[in-house]
């Protein structure tokens, strides 16, 4: 009982962290700020998926953790390349 309460409190804390990142996405002066906050939200999403899989006591979401990690990293790198060079995939010389 205490265990579940602690997990729900952890989820609430993660939601607060996500809202703070959302504030930075909305307000952030440069686009690099927004990309950074989106990457951070992806990482928080991984943590909350792990907490949910403990709360529901199931092994089914472990694939999702890996998948969200990979997708978040690829998206961040693509956005960073776009900010830096204007294109994501360059033409060959």
């Amino acid at each position, binding site marked *: 009982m*205490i*265990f579940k309460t*602690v*997990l729900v*409190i*952890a*989820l609430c*804390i*993660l939601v*607060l*962290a*996500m*809202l*703070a*990142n959302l*504030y*930075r996405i909305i307000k952030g002066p*440069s*686009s*690099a*700020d927004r*990309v*950074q*906050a989106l*990457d*951070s939200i992806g*990482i*928080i999403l*991984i*943590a909350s998926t*792990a*907490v949910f*899989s*403990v709360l529901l006591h199931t*092994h089914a979401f*472990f*694939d999702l*953790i*890996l998948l969200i*990690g*990979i997708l*978040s*990293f690829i998206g*961040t*790198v693509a*956005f*960073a*390349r776009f*900010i*830096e060079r204007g294109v994501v995939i360059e033409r060959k*010389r």
Partner: protein
Amino acid sequence: MNVNGEIGEVVGAVLILIGAIFSLISAIGIVRLPDVYTRSHAASKSSTLGVLCALLGTLLYFLISDGFFSIRLVLGIFFVFLTAPVAAHVICRAAYRDQVPLADQSVQDELKDYYMENEIVEVEDKAEIVNYQTTRDKEALWIDQK
């Protein structure tokens, strides 16, 4: 079994709570710090530590109370540990090359001199590429006309 379950619950709950608190600290840093680079510092380091604590808590909970060792979770921990700092580095680099300004109270910019030299080289490089492409287009046009 019951004792194991309780130990697993305690270990998992403590690690997950620590991870969540670290994520909150990272988010507070993201809101309150003055410029992109310091915000990226807060976002990458403490957020990575937080998610590592949460995933480790999940792994230990399932390992101790169920005896279930998930190699996917280990792989996820490894992957997050490997990629989160790289992503922060790439974003900071993009921000610097996009000329996002530093905070007002920062006193030193050691990258600036090196970056100026490097940037000139890259502009020449880009001009070369454009020249090469236009000559190639002209050649293609010439061949077409012929």
